[in-house]
C-alpha cells in the first residue's frame, strides 16, 4: 500500500509542479514578449524581398535570433491524452508560438539601429525527435532576415 502511494507521488508531483510552475513561467514569458514587442514595433519586420525604398539603402546585413524552449511535464501528459482522442493540442500551440515570437524579438534586438528588416524566414526544428522515455522534449525556433539602414 505504501509502495503504491510512493509510486503515485512520484508520478503526480512532477506533473503538478509542471502545471503550476509551467503556467507561471508561461505567463511571465508572454508578459515579457508583449512588452518587448511594443518596444520594438518601430522596426518593420516584413517577409517581402524588396526594400520599401530601394534607392536609399546604405547598408544591409544578416541578422538572426534563436531560442530553445522546453515543454513541461503537464503539457506532455495533455499531449499524450490528446493523442488518443485527436484534436488540436492547445498547450503545444502556445509553446511554439512563444518560441517563434521570442526568436523574432531576439533578431530585432540585434538590429535596433536598423530601419527595416526584410525577407524574414522562420525555421522550427525539434532537437531530440525520439519520444523514448527520458528524452528532452524541446523545440527550437530560428528567425533570420536582412536588416537595412537608410
Amino acid at each position, binding site marked *: 500500500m505504501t509502495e503504491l502511494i510512493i509510486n503515485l507521488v512520484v508520478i503526480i508531483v*512532477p506533473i503538478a*509542479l*509542471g502545471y503550476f*510552475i*509551467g503556467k507561471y*513561467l*508561461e505567463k511571465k*514569458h508572454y508578459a515579457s514578449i508583449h512588452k518587448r514587442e511594443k518596444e520594438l514595433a518601430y522596426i518593420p519586420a516584413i517577409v517581402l*524581398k524588396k*526594400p520599401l525604398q*530601394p534607392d536609399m*539603402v*546604405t*547598408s*544591409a*546585413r*544578416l541578422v*538572426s535570433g*534563436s*531560442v*530553445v*524552449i*522546453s*515543454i*513541461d*511535464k503537464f*503539457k506532455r501528459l495533455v499531449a499524450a491524452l490528446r493523442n488518443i482522442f485527436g484534436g488540436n493540442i492547445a498547450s503545444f500551440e502556445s*509553446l511554439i508560438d512563444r518560441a517563434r515570437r*521570442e526568436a523574432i524579438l531576439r533578431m530585432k534586438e540585434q538590429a535596433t539601429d536598423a530601419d527595416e528588416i*526584410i*525577407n524574414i*524566414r522562420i*525555421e522550427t*526544428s*525539434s*532537437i*531530440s*525527435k*525520439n519520444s523514448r522515455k*527520458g*528524452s*528532452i*522534449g*524541446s523545440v*527550437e525556433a*530560428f528567425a*533570420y*532576415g*536582412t536588416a*537595412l539602414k537608410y
Partner: protein
Amino acid sequence: MHLTNIETIPGKTITEHYGIVSGSTVRAKHAGRDFMAGLKNIFGGELKGYTELLSESRDQAMSRMTDQAKSLGANAVVNVRFSTSSVASGAAELYVYGTAVKVN
C-alpha cells in the same frame, strides 16, 4: 564580408558570381547540459544551454561558409539559407549555404 538573405545587396552591383558556398557543423550536447535540461523539462521554459550551443554552432558554420567564399575571391554572400537536421539523438547538424559574389 557582406551577408544578406535577399538576391542582391541593396545599393551595390554584383559583378561576378562564384557559385554555391556552404558550411556545416554537427554538434552534440554534453552530459552536464543534458542533465540541467532534464530538470528544466519538468517545469518548461527556455533551455539557455541549448540556445547557446545552437547559436555557437551556427556561427561556426557561417564562418566556415565565409572562409570558403573568401578563398574563392568573393567579398559577399547573397541569398543565405539555414537548415537544421538532427542526425542522431542528441546531435544536431547546422547547415548554412549561399551564393558567393563579388560586389563593388
